[in-house]
């Protein structure tokens, strides 16, 4: 997928500018109380301008009032633009995903008139939930669905950007296919799982668009606080009128409204929804589809992270690392036996044994040899050579069974070795030849590079990591320690995950997990943030509140950071916005009263030129700070896991103190320009 990191693309900017005007509609703006009051202020100023044009003399010059009106209008447009550009970016991102699947021809299988079933080519948009279609090599899959028959290799690069093809097959946990991806080989029958327009992607697009976007609980609470601030400043400004009357100071309407607009938190008010949309957009850029904005927010609060060992902590599969022959057996003989037994073993473990053995396999005489497949009952595999030699390899107890049943003794030294390997996090595979133990192969999990640092980072964020694995407790403990996770669930069954989540939630913690199988679905639904892999079953995808298109288990870590960034951006910009008020008070209040109480010149600490220039400078600063902060709102404040107190100190210093100082400088600078005319 095309991931554009440029913030302002021409096309998007154009669309956003148009939207900025559409959003001036009071019905739309009413959702944002802070900006709505600015709109009322603008309307009043417009009326004042008309009043002056009609001959009123007490309100100052028409030019001055007109400029104030225009700046207020621009403030509104800037705020609308912030929201619109965030929406446009989100939509563009989602559309680029959606485009790939629009109007692709689908081979629908229908109950025909002539044959029991016949194939009809229909546009993908006409497919409904429950319909069945056929995809052959070279076809683009028209809709999201579940394979009901067959197996295919699929190129999912259109969605994930990953070019290596993946295998999807009916039944099991890898049965989902995504619209827009391409079948490379074989043939599959797929049942459509969503109604047109209701796929996750469609839902996500709706989420980004204004109309159906629900405010998250945190956003609502912040809006209430901002409305509270707005009300305080309404009181401050309205009561100024009688105060002015008492002090014999006529205060112009323009001054009132300017003071009011400057004091209310327009900066955060204007950027608030953009921040929320940008959070979802960032998730989308990480190839995660969220089903609600709340899920992204909750991700920032996660206390406990359940991670599958395989694929997240360790690289896919175990690898053979050592051959341990029993005493009296020549190492070379043992290694050859190991390689022989694994020749037909196509599992990654088997391949790694052959690889490690590094012997010339073509020299083996395997004609007429019988390969014994691994089964759940025997829990061993191997080879029966024409010479009558039978080699078996398998789990410790499986081979022990074979050996002891034949009346042979299982060597103590090997039993000891098996234990050592297990406690070192390895998996022992015992090899026997004609019911006699030859030795043991050590398989080791390969822990991903840098994973330790990532867990450290999570720990500093206050997130506890839990590894979920099917390994025995000894192995699990070793890997857990080596990788640096805080806890582990060994020999995990699906219900173990569920119980662990419930236990954590009972003690008040928020839990996130990732899963793909149908048996993960209950746990995904129970978890506060459940991320389903896109390759997973439909049930898993329905149960979770996010879908990861990359099927990347480490994605959870990124999602947590996106959530934290979202909240932090809100917090820091609120602080910045409110801290700005200090300077604005010092710009406007002296300007209001200087005419009648000249003594108040002492309060004009910025030495602004005139009352008009002071008021205009403050309003202009108030307007242009919004677009200046749009990039920050869209990108998010950088999250650094340095502990809550240090983070607060840092942000308070940058956005709190900065919020006090910046407007003093900004207003003074603007005043130096404005003084030329006023």
């Amino acid at each position, binding site marked *: 997928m095309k991931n554009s990191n440029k913030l302002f693309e021409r096309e998007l900017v154009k669309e956003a500018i148009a939207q900025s005007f559409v959003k001036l509609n009071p019905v739309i703006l009413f959702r944002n109380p802070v900006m709505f009051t600015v709109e009322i202020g603008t309307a009043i100023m417009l009326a004042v301008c008309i009043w002056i044009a009609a001959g009123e003399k007490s309100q100052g010059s028409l030019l001055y009032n007109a400029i104030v009106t225009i700046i207020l209008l621009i403030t509104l447009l800037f705020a609308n633009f912030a929201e619109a550009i965030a929406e446009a970016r989100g939509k563009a991102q989602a559309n680029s995903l959606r485009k790939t699947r629009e109007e692709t021809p689908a081979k629908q299988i229908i109950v025909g008139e002539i044959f029991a079933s016949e194939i009809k080519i229909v546009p993908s948009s006409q497919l409904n939930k429950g319909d069945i279609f056929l995809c052959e090599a070279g076809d683009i899959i028209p809709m999201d669905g579940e394979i009901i028959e067959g197996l295919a290799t699929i190129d999912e690069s259109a969605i994930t950007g990953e070019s290596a093809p993946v295998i999807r097959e009916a039944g099991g946990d890898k049965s989902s296919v995504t619209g827009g991806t391409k079948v490379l080989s074989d043939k599959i029958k797929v049942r459509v799982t969503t109604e047109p327009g209701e796929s996750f992607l469609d839902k996500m697009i709706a989420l980004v668009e204004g109309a159906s976007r629900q405010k998250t609980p945190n956003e609502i609470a912040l809006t209430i606080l901002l409305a509270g601030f707005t009300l305080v400043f309404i009181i401050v400004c309205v009561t100024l009128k009688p105060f002015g009357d*008492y002090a014999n100071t006529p205060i112009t309407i323009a001054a009132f409204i300017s003071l009011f607009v400057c004091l209310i938190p327009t900066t955060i008010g204007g950027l608030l929804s953009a921040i929320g949309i940008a959070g979802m957009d960032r998730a989308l850029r990480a190839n995660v589809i969220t089903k609600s904005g709340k899920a992204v927010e909750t991700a920032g609060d996660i206390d406990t992270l359940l991670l599958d060992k395989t694929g997240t902590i360790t690289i896919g599969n175990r690898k053979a690392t050592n051959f341990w022959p029993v005493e009296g057996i020549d190492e070379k003989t043992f290694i050859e036996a190991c390689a022989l037994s694994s020749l037909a073993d196509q599992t990654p473990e088997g391949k790694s044994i052959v690889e490690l053995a590094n012997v010339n396999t073509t020299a083996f005489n395997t004609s007429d040899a019988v390969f014994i497949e691994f089964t759940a009952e025997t829990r061993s595999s191997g080879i029966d050579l024409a010479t009558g030699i039978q080699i078996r390899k398998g789990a410790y107890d499986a081979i022990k069974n074979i050996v002891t049943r034949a009346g042979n003794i299982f060597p103590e030294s090997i039993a000891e070795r098996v234990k050592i390997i297990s406690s070192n996090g390895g998996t022992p595979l015992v090899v026997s030849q004609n019911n006699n133990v030859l030795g043991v192969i050590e398989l080791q999990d390969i822990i991903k590079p840098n994973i330790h640092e990532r867990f450290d980072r999570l720990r*500093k964020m206050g997130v506890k990591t839990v590894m979920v694995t099917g390994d025995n407790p000894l192995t699990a403990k070793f890997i857990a320690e080596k990788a640096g996770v805080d806890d582990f669930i060994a020999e995990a069954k699906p219900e173990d995950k569920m119980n662990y989540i419930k236990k954590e939630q009972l003690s008040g913690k928020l839990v996130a997990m990732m899963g793909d199988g149908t048996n993960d679905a209950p746990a995904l639904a129970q978890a506060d943030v459940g991320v389903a892999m896109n390759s997973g079953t439909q049930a898993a995808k329905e149960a979770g509140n996010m879908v990861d298109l990359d099927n990347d288990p480490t994605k959870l870590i990124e999602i947590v950071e996106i959530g934290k960034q979202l909240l932090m951006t809100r917090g820091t910009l609120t602080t910045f916005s409110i801290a700005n008020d200090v300077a604005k008070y010092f710009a406007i209040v002296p300007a209001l009263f200087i005419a009648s109480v000249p003594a108040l010149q002492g309060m004009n600490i910025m030495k602004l030129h005139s009352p008009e220039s002071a008021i205009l400078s403050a309003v202009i600063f108030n307007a242009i700070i919004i677009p200046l902060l749009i990039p920050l709102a869209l990108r998010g404040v950088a999250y650094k896991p340095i502990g809550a107190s240090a983070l607060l100190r840092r942000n308070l210093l940058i956005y709190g103190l900065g919020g006090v100082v910046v407007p003093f400088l900004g207003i003074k600078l603007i005043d130096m320009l404005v003084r030329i005319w006023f």
Partner: protein
Amino acid sequence: MFTEIPGIILMFVLLIILAIPFGRYIGKVFNYEPTRLDFLLNPLDNLFFKLSGINPNKQMNWKQHLGVMLLLNLIWFLLSMFILMNMGWLPLNPDKNPGMNPDLAFNTAISFICNTNLQHYSGESGISYLGQLVLMLWQFLSAGIGIAAAAVVFVAMKERTTEQLGNFYSFFIRSCTRVLLPLAVVVAIILAFNGAPMTFNGKDTITTLQGDTMQVSRGPAAAFIAIKHLGTNGGGFFGANSAHPFENPNYFTNIVEMVAQMIIPVAMLFAMGYMLKRRKLSWMIFGVMTIGFLILTVPTVLAELQGNPAIGKMGISQSSGNMEGKEVRIGSGASAYWSIATTVISTGSVNAMHDSFMPLSGMNQLLAMMVNCFYGGCGVGFLNFYIFVIIAVFISGLMVGRTPEFLGKKIEAKEMKIASIIALLHPFLILTGTALASYIYAHNPAAYAAWLNNPGSHGFSEMLYEYTSSSANNGSGFEGLGYGNGSSVGDNTLWWNITCGVVMLLSRFLPIIGPVAIAGILAGKKFIPESPGTLKTDSATFGIMVFAVIFIIAALSFFPALSLGPIAEYFGMK
């Protein structure tokens, strides 16, 4: 000139030395741990509960707590209206003072029930001893209500997930008998021995050196003054309040009264630390409050010690500071310290004329009441601070990338709504009240000329002060307002009595209801254990955040008003 400073430092140090152990004692009282006074007070409490038929062990949720609180106050209000209006013929009236007219009774009744003690009458001529005794009882009870409400919040902060927040009657009785009463006895005895009258006899007659006869008012003042300070009430027995030699006979009693009025608000913080086992949190709050207190106190003390430059220019020595409106036995420095102490906490007793302070000292007094939570009143000071903590937690919680939580409880829309309304209320009442008065005065200066003794910005400060004092439940007066002392009946009196009464009523009960509701709602929520990602609310950084929130909401909202009043006056003097 700076010889007065050690005395001021002594008052502050003494306060802290006494407040810490006393806070631990209050913590024990509300934790129902054994204390040394139990042998005396347990039977007393039990007798009360037996007589009234109240079960002190019945657990209440936050709504029930508030219900009881409001009901008690309603009964007291009706009772005091009756007594104040009829005290002319009721017993204990040796000086034959008349009953109050309805609007003054309304103002006075509310004023004492609300722990404000704004007095639009003068104790010598405006009220009988029965009236004084009733008011003295309210001084106990209203302080007890504040302490009990804070105790409910402490319990709510302590509990993990529960609706059961103790019993309001029990908290209330314990506040009165175990916190206020023992201290009141001690302070009253000290005052009586230093010359404060304690008698039910009527006015005394003395012959002055010039040979004139003079009527001197007296009464059961020592007991009244003790509780007026301990309960952060501030209503004087005499019109001149603690500037009167009978109320505040000497420098020593001045120290005693000073410590007495601040001890409970400060001790409440340490009580919270003890009850919640979060001493660091109580030190953080104490630190923020103290810094705020000192920021207001230090410049005021210095300004008053330096004297009035306008008088200095006339060639009059200002070596003992700005002494206009101050008592010689107390001095300008200690009076300045008192003026800030009495305004940061909600006492409002005065030992000097606030009207005559330097303009910026007047501004600091106003700011102290506008903030109203640097220590604040008995119990309610902490409640006011709690609102700012909630808002600060919300913003700083976001800043560290977590849904905001305070003591393990998530702060969501409902709590924010309550906190915003309460934070809004104080500026609303003060500014609207002053705006209405300004409007009326400005549009009809001739008819309302009697309102203001001073024109211009000082007159504006007088009006602003009156509403600030009412809204902060402080009760001190800048004075200079022509609302008369009960004798000048007319529209003027009616206006101030009614509007100030309404302001006091709203600003007393809503700021109790709000924090109790928030704490109660939070107590019922799921408890979230602390993690390294949790914002620490007992850190210095968070303290700065709270201070910034207080500064921006409580102080900056009044910036335009202050600049028309004391600030304009200050620059005008230059």
